[in-house]
């Protein structure tokens, strides 16, 4: 309170950031024994990692079942071992299917728990609050406590609800959210469901969530829920088109619908499709926020308008499942954005050294952070604005970019120059084209960016009524 105002940084936010406790300050304030213990731990951590690094560099791991960089190897080894035992082909199928399924479920479940905590903590940081910090260390057990509370709650069924259908949606909505993880490749051999129509599969699976949402809204016998459901259905149906169109450009370049192929293409060409197809990335990301009800497109559960949208009437663990799926979908979109546009598990050769699934996880986390950031910052669109944006803006431009990338892909396939140069040129052209086309189309549609000066209020010292108002309007 008594500190000197003049000597501090200009904006209050900067001031607050600078006044945060730093790591160095934290170390200084810890007692010496603890500090020594931490140092020993850090040293040990370093030594172990160097040892692992040496192991990896020497190539002793390559291809063995204990190659921790690709858990797919281990499963393959298990399968061949089972096949050798001649127990019938179905056994190895079932065992690997179970391993994969359990792996995905446990991963998603664990990440959901952590993700809730991360989202709440991050939002709290954005909002100068503390966030959950009571249950467990740093409040880490808060999601578990929440889940326990939700499970204990009474099962409420609203009067007049369609009882048979009312129980279905929380389960139905969970299925696509889990199935969507199937084709995501975590490492070269580590994809549970590496079908050759993976991209189409993802789009198809995500379109199934509409029905669960609609059933939820319709069976609740609640007007808010029905309104939310209709909003969701309208949005999802319109935003599926830009999603498909933006992914079409990806397919045109990579020449495959298989997700592992798409990642492999990016890896072999040492590029990210995000650099080549910036508009497709934006379209996919934005449309995905609309499809999974994240800010700024969370109109389906706009709490200030329709309370909680389609899951207004759900309570207890059923509501918990809806919330979990909402979060899980954000993570899934993160995985898909990383796979399609950010090079998936590859990171310019680094995936040889670091386990690729960690790279993918880092990318998912980055996209997820972006989601949380948006949620902490932006207001919400209106339904008609969003629909108009999809139909008047995203779809025509996406079609234009599909054409553009078709031309570019065929040029890329025919030109006999180093791939990186051609792709770089294409990337530059596309960035420029994105800017130009977006501007031009905005002008065609008739959208003008509001200028700040027109929006400021006039300042006056004279009071008056209607006549003064007219005077002010004439000479602002």
């Amino acid at each position, binding site marked *: 309170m008594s500190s000197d105002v003049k000597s501090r940084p200009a904006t209050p936010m900067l001031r607050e950031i600078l006044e945060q406790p730093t790591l160095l300050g934290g170390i200084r304030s810890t007692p010496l024994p603890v500090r020594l213990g931490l140092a020993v731990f850090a040293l040990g951590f370093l030594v172990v990692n160097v040892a692992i690094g040496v192991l990896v560099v020497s190539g002793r791991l390559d291809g063995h079942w204990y190659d921790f960089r690709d858990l797919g190897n281990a499963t393959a080894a298990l399968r061949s071992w089972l096949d050798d035992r001649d127990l019938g082909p179905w056994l190895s199928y079932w065992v690997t299917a179970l391993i994969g399924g359990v792996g995905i479920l446990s991963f998603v479940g664990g990440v959901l728990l952590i993700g809730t905590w991360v989202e709440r903590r991050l939002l709290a940081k954005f909002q100068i609050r503390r966030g959950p910090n009571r249950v467990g260390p740093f409040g880490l057990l808060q999601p578990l406590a929440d889940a326990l509370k939700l499970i204990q709650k009474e099962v409420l069924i609203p009067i007049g609800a369609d009882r048979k259908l009312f129980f279905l949606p929380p389960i139905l909505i969970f299925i696509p959210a889990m199935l969507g993880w199937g084709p995501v490749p975590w490492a070269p051999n580590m994809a549970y469901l590496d079908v050759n129509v993976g991209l189409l599969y993802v789009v198809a699976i995500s*379109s199934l969530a509409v029905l669960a949402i609609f059933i939820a809204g319709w069976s609740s016998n609640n007007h808010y829920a029905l309104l939310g459901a209709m909003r969701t259905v309208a949005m999802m149906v319109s935003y599926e088109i830009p999603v498909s169109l933006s992914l079409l450009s990806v397919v045109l370049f990579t020449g495959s619908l298989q997700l592992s192929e798409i990642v492999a293409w990016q890896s072999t060409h040492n590029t990210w499709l995000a650099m080549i197809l910036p508009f497709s990335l934006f379209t996919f990301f934005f449309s995905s926020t609309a499809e999974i009800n994240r800010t700024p497109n969370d109109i389906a559960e706009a709490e200030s308008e329709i309370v909680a949208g389609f899951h207004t009437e759900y309570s207890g663990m059923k509501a918990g499942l809806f919330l979990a799926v909402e979060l899980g979908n954000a993570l899934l979109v993160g995985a898909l954005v990383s796979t399609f546009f950010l090079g998936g598990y590859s990171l310019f050769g680094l995936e040889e050294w670091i386990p690729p699934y960690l790279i993918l996880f880092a990318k998912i986390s980055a996209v997820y952070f972006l989601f949380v950031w948006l949620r902490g910052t932006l207001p919400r669109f209106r339904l*008609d604005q969003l629909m108009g944006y999809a139909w008047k803006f995203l779809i025509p431009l996406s079609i234009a970019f599909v054409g553009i990338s078709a031309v570019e892909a065929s040029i890329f396939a025919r030109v006999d120059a180093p791939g990186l140069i051609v792709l770089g040129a294409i990337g530059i052209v596309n960035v420029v084209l994105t800017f130009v086309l977006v501007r031009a189309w905005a002008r065609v549609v008739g959208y003008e960016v509001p200028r700040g000066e027109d929006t400021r209020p006039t300042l006056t010292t004279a009071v008056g009524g209607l006549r003064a108002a007219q005077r002010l309007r004439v000479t602002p």
Partner: protein
Amino acid sequence: MESTGIIVAFWVLAAVTVAGALGVIVSRDLLHAIFFLILSFLGMAGLFITLSADFIAVAQVLIYAGAISVLLVFAVMLTPLVSRDNGNSLYVAPGALAGLGLAALVVFVAVDTEWAQLSGDALAARSFPDTVATIGDLLLGRYVLAFEVASILLLFALLGAIVLVHERRADAAAGAADTPANREEAA
């Protein structure tokens, strides 16, 4: 098609498909009927997968379960509550007769005929390498004319749907049908 897995899968999926289709007949509420129909579609997609038609199966899910069912739901929601029953018309008896007769006929013929078909190891060996690429080649090669006609058909369907439900501003008193819904129709 002799492994246990595929046999189980076939019978389960066939049961789901037929049960869904029967549900369409018996359910009282039109929306329940639509949900049964979706179940049937999904079972059908599963049957497609057992036939190694991965692309078609995914397209089935995308188009039928994802798009057409949503259209149906929209159409039902745009009409009022009173017309949401799934009642039978006068033609139900002749319809049932014709349907059952045809089904019985087809089942009888299908089971009783000796088809010139692959089976056993020959069938297992005869797998499609890359359905997507081949279908793409065929669509833009051998069947390009049909492809173009289909796209024109889609375009006209789009335009037709828009023209049909388009309201002139004067008619649209108090926004009798709001624009997003109309757009859905067009989609």
